[in-house]
């Protein structure tokens, strides 16, 4: 990972690997559109390019990295970094028991990028049997912070309590 990659800032709105891929596709489409405009207006002096509208995610990305969409060099550099990140960014898989709302995801993303890795991407999953908590899978490890795991961990206490209750029950 070179310096450009390290300095790349992922906006909080861009959470998952799919978001990154979508933003990259959008940026490539813009690049193609600008290239087409450039070809069409090549022979004309003082031609102005029409900048296409873009998504909030992409605009946040551009803003976070101080990139002007009309700056070809910066745009190309951003595209390169994003392509590299798309293939090599560390992905943290998070599985929840219920659907994750955007606000919570944003908070989690901020914590992950502020604590673990600034360019980490998240992969969100849903598994209702977890009851609560989160099931975290890093590239090489698994961390089960779910309520199900917590209950299983405390199973011995429950068994002892139930045995006590059974022994005290009338035959």
């Amino acid at each position, binding site marked *: 990972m070179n310096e450009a990659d390290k300095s790349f800032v992922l906006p909080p709105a861009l959470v998952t690997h799919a978001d990154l891929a979508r933003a990259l596709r959008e940026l490539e489409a813009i690049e193609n559109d600008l290239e087409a405009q450039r070809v069409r207006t090549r022979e004309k002096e003082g031609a102005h390019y029409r900048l296409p509208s873009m998504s909030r995610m992409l605009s946040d990305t551009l803003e976070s990295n101080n990139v002007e969409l009309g700056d070809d060099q910066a745009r190309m550099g951003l595209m390169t970094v994003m392509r590299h990140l798309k293939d090599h960014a560390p992905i943290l898989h998070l599985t*929840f028991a219920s659907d*994750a*709302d955007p606000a919570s995801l944003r908070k989690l993303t901020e*914590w992950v990028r502020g604590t*673990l890795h600034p360019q980490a991407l998240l992969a969100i999953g849903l598994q209702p049997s977890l009851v609560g908590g989160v099931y975290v899978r*890093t590239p*090489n490890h698994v961390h089960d*912070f779910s309520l199900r795991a917590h209950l299983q961990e405390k199973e011995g206490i429950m068994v002892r309590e139930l045995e006590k209750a059974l022994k005290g029950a009338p035959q």
Partner: protein
Amino acid sequence: MTIEWLAFILGALAAVFLGFIWVIISVNRLQNGGGKKGKDGKKSVNDLDKAYSDIAEEDVNHLFNKEFREELRNRGRLRFEKVVDENAMFLKQDLDMTISQLNEYMKEQISSKLDNEFAEYAKAMKEAQELTLAILKKTADEAEAQRQSLNEGLQKSVAAHEAGLLKAFEMNMAAIVEHYVLEALGDQFDLKQQLPYIIEQMEANKQAMMEDMRL
């Protein structure tokens, strides 16, 4: 009575016969004493004998005339009937006695036989009863043993089943409770409420995750 009459008749016949013998002897004496007289005398003796014979025959005919014979025949018939009646009576008495004795004998024999048969029957019945009782007792003992065995087996089976159930319950009750909690609370938490807990857990393990993310 009959014997007396017979004795009387025989006595009368004997007296007639003795009288006739005495007449013959007297005649012979006379003939021997008169031999001197010659052939004429012999002729007269023969005539006399003939006369005596005729007299005797006439006396016999006179003595055993038709009425006397008829009387004798009647008496004999009566006597014979009486004898026959008496004999019949004796025979009847003997026969009655014999029948009575025979009845007694038959009764004794039949009673004896019946007693023996009844004794045998009673003995056989007793043996059969004892045998039946023994079989029943044996059957009851076997049934009791089987019941005992079945009872023990059942108790063991029930105990094993109970132990198995308890063991399974002990093994699974935690899973049951856990399942209950999962089912009961599955949709009750949203991510917003869990976020502090999640971040706290991740914070506690951030070092390991950071090292893993760097790789």
